[in-house]
């Protein structure tokens, strides 16, 4: 089995996790910029984090034979402070030419506030100006429906944005149709409690088809399972899906989306 982990917060994970992922057939990891679990106090904190994502973590992943890619942004959880967000957005272009940068992400909304929406639109503008792919985080739990609708509307209002170059992540049964029908890619995040279980993700593949859809573990500093993607592949096998179909869902689909940037090259 081979698979791509298209959304993993590897700076939070141990070397044991890297070993387990490599042994399970992981071909590469892609790490969106994330909230640290606490608010960073200045733009310098973000500068250091972007250095970690573009220099130090790729070197750590390489020790396990894993190519490491990243996405840059200030996370929506820190977007209420618009001034800080603007300062962070201003330093991102310095990092866009680093060899492992795939685009802008994970941007989006958290509590669906006006300021979060403003900062989201600033990120979309940055991506459009620099012709970057976009990875979007949709809000948690009761806020997801409203946030997904606001995000889709904002993206449709920006005529520079090509939907096939945007992936909207953490979809569930009540948001997947809106995302796919609007022409975007959709990501299903496999979490033990919130977001989506393996069984439900496979249900959504059965219902909505195998195009413009990927799965990720989003493994981070919270309760999450770094091997969620290969575990779901095993469950797909139990449900009678063919090896070719499983390969499409866990390897070829993310490869197709990510290959839209010339920086994404698998050895």
């Amino acid at each position, binding site marked *: 089995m081979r698979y791509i982990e298209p959304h993993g917060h590897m700076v939070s994970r141990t070397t044991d996790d890297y070993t387990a992922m490599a042994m399970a057939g992981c071909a590469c990891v892609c790490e969106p910029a994330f909230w640290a679990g606490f608010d960073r106090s200045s733009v310098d904190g973000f500068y250091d984090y972007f250095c970690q994502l573009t220099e130090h973590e790729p070197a750590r992943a390489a020790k396990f034979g894993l190519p490491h890619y990243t996405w840059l942004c200030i996370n929506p*959880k820190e977007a*209420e402070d618009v001034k800080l967000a603007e300062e962070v957005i201003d330093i991102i272009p310095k990092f866009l030419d680093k060899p492992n940068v795939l685009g802008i992400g994970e941007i989006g909304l*958290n*509590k*669906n*506030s*006006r*300021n*979060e*929406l403003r900062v989201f639109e600033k990120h979309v503008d940055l991506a459009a100006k620099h012709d970057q792919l976009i990875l979007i985080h949709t*809000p*948690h*739990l*009761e*806020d*997801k*429906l*409203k946030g997904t*609708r*606001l995000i889709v509307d904002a993206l449709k209002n920006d005529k520079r944005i090509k939907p096939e170059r945007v992936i909207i992540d953490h979809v*569930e*049964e*009540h948001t997947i149709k809106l995302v796919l029908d609007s022409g975007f890619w959709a990501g299903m995040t496999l979490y033990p409690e*919130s977001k989506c279980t393996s*069984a*439900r993700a496979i*249900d959504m593949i059965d219902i909505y088809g195998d195009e413009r859809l990927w799965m990720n573990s989003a493994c981070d500093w919270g309760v999450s399972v770094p091997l969620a993607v290969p575990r779901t592949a095993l469950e797909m096998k*139990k*449900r*009678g899906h063919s090896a070719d179909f499983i390969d499409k869902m866990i390897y070829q689909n993310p490869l197709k989306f990510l290959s839209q940037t010339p920086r994404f090259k698998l050895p």
Partner: protein
Amino acid sequence: MTRQQVLDLYFMEARAKLIDIAAFLDRLDRAPGEPDFRLRAFIKAMHELQTEGPNRAEKVLLSLSDHTTEPLAKATVKGATGAYRQ
């Protein structure tokens, strides 16, 4: 998968979750104090399980969701509770 195969693969897991929900409601009954809005939202969402398919999961999620459309004036907290406070 046939219905028989779905039952073979998932019945025991779903049965365990069903009993867990029943025990959770019993635990709430035994506990002192008043419940907050989440219990009402939970009971309301449970009614979706008794409706006709095929989209019960979607209906449960919609039942627990914020259906307003205007952005919030300000984000005063970071977390979510799992149910919308009417």
